């Protein structure tokens, strides 16, 4: 009974919150509401027995995205007023939303109510995949090719983001000397590394994996960037490029290597599969962390700083 109440509440709150996010006139409020929305949906994932997703959602979908959007607002405030969000009343919007929801809901309710999906198939072949956690098995082995392309997506986004904002800005050097944040990093860095390593390792048999770990690592880095302790990693640095690209290269190598022995792309030998997946995941963790960091182009120099710059 309480379960249904909780689920119902959550299921109702999510769209309402989403509506609010879009209705709010103030952009910063909207972003804050969006973060709240993300956390609430992470709760939803957890309720649906999807702890992997809850983790990623909380860390990446909400944490990093929220930070990114918040960070952007500090720039787009300068947008001329005519492009600003205008809360125009659109009576058709509500109507359209309702109609669309009904239409889609009709289809959703017509779906079979108790399909196991591909669960049994995954279960049957899980032994052969080299990992015990079914989600990791799907992600890195059964559908590893998706993941390979997804890494390409990340690289492209990082490349694009760096291409348009190539400067790696740090507001002021005195911020870097701030004892408080220095202390924070001294405390956090080992913990972050530990947690990230743990998440990759645990991904073998439980919720966790490269994305979660990469997100954790990136979280630390983002705080460093936002507090001006660190510049955004730059593509011009060879070390950054190696950190970014070792993972993909390794992944491609592991994917292509089976071809040499007459196997198919990404057809990992059963005995080695677990080890190979672990190595690739370790390397990908670094890649993912780097990519996520590259999304943050540093803090905006304060107005006074900008004045001095010119």
């Amino acid at each position, binding site marked *: 009974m309480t379960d249904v109440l909780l689920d119902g509440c959550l299921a109702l709150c999510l769209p309402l919150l989403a509506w609010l996010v879009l209705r709010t006139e103030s952009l910063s409020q909207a972003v804050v509401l969006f973060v709240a929305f993300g956390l609430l949906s992470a709760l939803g994932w957890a309720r649906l027995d999807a702890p992997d997703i809850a983790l990623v959602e909380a860390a990446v979908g909400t944490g990093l995205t929220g930070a990114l959007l918040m960070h952007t607002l500090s720039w787009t405030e300068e947008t001329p007023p005519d492009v600003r969000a205008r809360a125009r009343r659109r009576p058709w919007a509500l109507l359209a939303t309702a109609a669309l929801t009904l239409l889609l809901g009709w289809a959703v309710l017509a779906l079979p109510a108790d399909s196991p999906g591909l669960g049994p198939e995954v279960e049957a072949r899980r032994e052969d995949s080299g990992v015990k956690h079914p989600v990791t098995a799907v992600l890195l082995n059964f559908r590893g090719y998706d993941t390979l392309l997804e890494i390409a997506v990340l690289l492209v986004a990082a490349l694009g983001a760096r291409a348009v904002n190539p400067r790696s800005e740090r507001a002021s050097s005195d911020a870097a000397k701030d004892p408080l944040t220095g202390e924070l990093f001294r405390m*956090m860095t080992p913990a972050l590394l530990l947690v990230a390593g743990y998440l990759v390792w645990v991904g073998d048999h439980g919720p966790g994996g490269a994305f979660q770990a990469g997100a954790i690592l990136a979280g630390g880095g983002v705080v460093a960037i936002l507090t001006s302790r660190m510049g955004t990693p730059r593509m011009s640095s060879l070390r950054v490029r190696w950190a970014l690209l070792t993972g993909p290269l390794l992944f491609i190598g592991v994917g292509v290597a089976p071809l040499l022995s007459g196997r198919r792309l990404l057809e990992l030998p059963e005995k080695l599969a677990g080890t190979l997946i672990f190595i690739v995941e370790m390397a990908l963790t670094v890649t993912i962390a780097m990519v996520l960091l590259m999304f943050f182009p540093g803090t905006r120099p304060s107005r006074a700083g900008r004045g001095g710059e010119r």
Partner: protein
Amino acid sequence: MSPLELLSAAFLLAGAAFCLAGTVGVLRFPDVYCRLHALTKVDNLGLGLVVAGLALQSASWATALKLFLVWLFVLISSAFTCQLIARAALRRGAVPSGGRREP
């Protein structure tokens, strides 16, 4: 209900009450510094109580330890976040209101 469960329930309820109080504080307090105060101090306490309540119910020590770690990390991060936000506010010239609500 065993005493342990009762205790756990009490912790959880108290934690929830603190969290509620913290939220009310964020909504009602007049300036950014007071709100930070409500957010960090009260919520941390609330979370601690919730963690304690859950730890009492947990099956193993390992789980209890993980719960405790969660609290610890939140404590650290909220302390720093609070500090950072307050400093940013100060730099932008937000003046403590001295307890009065702005009109």
